[in-house]
């Protein structure tokens, strides 16, 4: 058995999840963690599953992609790869007029501070661009990171906030 990272993306229509999941189930590939969502009319699936060799899965998905409406990729990945040490969880929110490089500049500030983005989503609605990221920061670094984020946001002309994420209560 191998661990596989699979991506599928295509113009949204009813049945994409069912079609892909059916192929995977037919091969005995067990779906573990996944995200599946609609992005501006495209449906994007990113999934990790445990199953047969990558080539076999890729061949089985090929008919779905044959008409060019879906793009599927399959790669073998190392199971239980090294994970970054958990830091303190924060939520970063950025909003402002859309322009090139907002995500690049803001996440570079996080990366340079040793911060690890664990989840991120962006939305463009009209001219408003919104980024919300969940990030783990090295202990005790949040004040300094918030200061650097504020300076970078000011240069970009966008608003930024960094707040502690909700912790698990039980």
């Amino acid at each position, binding site marked *: 058995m191998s661990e596989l990272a699979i991506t599928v993306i295509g113009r949204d229509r009813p049945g994409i999840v069912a079609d892909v999941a059916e192929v995977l189930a037919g091969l005995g590939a067990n779906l573990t963690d996944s995200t599946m969502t609609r992005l501006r009319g495209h449906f994007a699936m990113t999934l990790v599953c445990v199953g047969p060799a990558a080539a076999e899965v890729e061949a089985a998905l090929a008919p779905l992609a044959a008409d060019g409406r879906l793009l599927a990729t399959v790669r073998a990945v190392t199971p239980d790869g090294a994970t970054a040490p958990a830091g303190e969880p924060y939520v970063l929110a950025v*909003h402002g007029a859309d322009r090139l490089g907002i995500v690049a500049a803001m996440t570079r500030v996080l990366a340079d501070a040793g911060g690890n983005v664990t989840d991120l989503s962006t*939305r463009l*609605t009209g001219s408003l661009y919104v980024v919300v990221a*969940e990030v783990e920061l090295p202990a005790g670094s949040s004040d300094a990171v918030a200061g650097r984020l504020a300076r970078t946001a000011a240069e970009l002309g966008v*608003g930024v906030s960094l707040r502690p994420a909700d912790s698990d209560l039980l």
Partner: protein
Amino acid sequence: MTAGYTGLGDWTPEALGVPGRVRPVVSAPEPVLSRPGPEVDPTCEEVVQLAADLVATMRVSPGCVGLAAPQVGVSAQVFAVDVTDHPKAVTVHGTFVLCNARVVEATRWKAGREGCMSVPDLTGDVKRASRLVVEGALPGSGAPVRLVTDGFEARALQHEIDHCAGLLFLDRVAGAHAIYQRKVYL
């Protein structure tokens, strides 16, 4: 209680003594929405007119339960709230306008879905205190006011006080998947 603070009494927008004019509402990414507003002199004529205009604009906007000065393009700590007849409201203080308001007690934090006239296409999950004490000043008389409220009205007050500080609900969303495309427009 801070000395000198009282409730709203029988205050209504008519006490402002000037007719309100409907002003255009600005949307993000308008920079005024991200700028902390300065404190105001609640007795100043300009602030009294702004207060009346906020009430008038709120009243003509369907589903609007609060409107802050930055939303009509004015960077200032003034906002109007009215949750009267809202099905989710428990404590209701009617229509009122506060200047220089600040939260003095906030407890019983609860998550809820919020939208905003200035972010018309998105909503988000935001944690707010459901028991709240706010102090501020009435426009016109400048009388100091202390409001004790809860639930929906408390949420509206925190949302408007945030506007006055240059913050949108987007700055307080719970996580990367806590923003939604609005499906129902009021």
